[in-house]
């Protein structure tokens, strides 16, 4: 058995989760605060990856990212970035694909904080950034953790998008879910089972941790 796909999967999940956190943070914060009338529209767009078939998404990524296309060639020529068949492309696609899994918990965590915390900090003359980092985020750690862990687990399980734009390059874009698919295609069911087991067990443990932790932190406030 080859461990590369497993290692690569965890690398992809880590990098994606890390970057996603910093993208989702301002977005979730904005959504939790705004009364803008376009808010439902933005919320819908953020949630689209939940309901779109990943292969559809992947196919359009392929078209958008490929250098034969205006956007893709612009990226390629001006920034020297090639998004198809590369780890960085997978990261970008995964970020888009896991976006709702990070934005939703952050947004709801911030929304559920009493507004008086935000107001109090503002009236003390603190900037929005100070308020966010010193007051709001430390008080919704559980939501942040949920977001981080869900995104991580979801990226581990990602398949359709990666299949479409990854090109199945060993050590670069061949993640575990693709490896399972490959082995199934090649009728090596035993190897597929081993990969699947590793994937299932690790996502299971990760989720169980979230729920144990959530239960625990909720219990403190339950009457």
């Amino acid at each position, binding site marked *: 058995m080859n461990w590369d796909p497993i290692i690569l999967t965890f690398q992809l999940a880590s990098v994606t989760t890390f970057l996603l956190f910093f993208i989702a943070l301002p977005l979730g914060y904005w959504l939790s605060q705004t009364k803008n009338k376009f808010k439902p529209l933005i919320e819908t767009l953020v949630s689209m990856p939940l309901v779109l078939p990943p292969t559809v998404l992947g196919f359009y990524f392929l078209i958008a990212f490929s250098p034969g296309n205006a956007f893709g060639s612009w990226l390629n020529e001006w920034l020297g970035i090639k998004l198809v068949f590369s780890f960085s492309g997978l990261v970008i696609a995964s970020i888009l694909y896991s976006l709702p899994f990070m934005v939703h918990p952050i947004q709801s965590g911030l929304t559920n904080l009493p507004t008086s*915390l935000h*107001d*109090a900090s*503002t*009236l003390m*003359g*603190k900037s929005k950034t100070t308020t966010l980092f010193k007051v709001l985020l430390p*008080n919704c750690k559980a939501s942040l953790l949920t977001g981080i862990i869900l995104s991580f687990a979801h990226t581990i399980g990602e398949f359709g998008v990666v299949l479409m734009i990854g090109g199945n390059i060993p050590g670069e874009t061949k993640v575990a879910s693709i490896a399972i698919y490959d082995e199934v295609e090649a009728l090596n069911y035993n190897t597929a089972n081993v990969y699947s087991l590793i994937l299932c067990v690790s996502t299971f443990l990760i989720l169980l941790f979230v729920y144990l932790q959530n239960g625990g932190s909720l219990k403190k406030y339950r009457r």
Partner: protein
Amino acid sequence: MIKAHIEKTLKASENPLKIDVKIHVSRGMFASLYGASGAGKTSTLRMISGLLKPDHGLITNHEDLWFDSNKNITKNPKHRNIGYVFQDSALFPNMTVFENLEYALTNKRDTKHLYQLIKLMKLDELCNQKPGTLSGGQKQRVALARALAQKPALLLLDEPLAALDNESRVELQDCLLQVHKTFRLTTLLVSHDIAEILKLSDQVFVMDHGKITQQGSPKTIFTQNSLNENFEITGEISKIERQGIQFCMTVRIQNTSVKIMAKKFEIENLKVGDEILVGTKNFNPFVLKTSD
């Protein structure tokens, strides 16, 4: 001197509420805003502090223009330097009591002011606790101290004592009196407890359905308003005894003796034999027939 002439229509539930108020509070005065639930008290405070934008109007604090709808000027709430105590205390759960106070300091090195507050408000023993472990009364005491830590130009208190039980409430009222005596901050308190307003404030605004219906000294307002809210009678002090940290006065009224507990500062210029006026605000008597 804070001046607020503001209008705003709130469109909650079926029937929108139009708030239209004129509030003037002179420098160093303690004013109260009284009214039933839903009258618009909180909204008024939020507009003065800048957390809610009025539709029309003008708000100034001394020479400082905070809001002018004609000139389209709105000063950012974070620059208004307002000490605000919320009904739910709004202490930051992630910080200890000390860190909460420290966070509010405008000048991080002004720890002298901090320790003065901690002493004044008797917070020494709570300093290292997290807000989650405090009782309701302790929480509001810390919230008040925190609002004072930033040396505010104006103190806004939104029913800080409404959720407390009697005992903590009276204790906090004394604390508020003490604070006002010490710092002489212009203060606006929202309350729907007449006794509290009578005890604390120089001036009261009665608010009903978004309008100020009456204003003036609390005594005038509340006695002319509801006859039996206030009750006064004269008596003579026959004894003053120390009881723990308090004092117990025996007062002879008619032919009965009544015992009245008092704080040290309350009896400072009283002695046995003095004739005094004993009053109670919020007089909600029961009547029993004795002759039959």
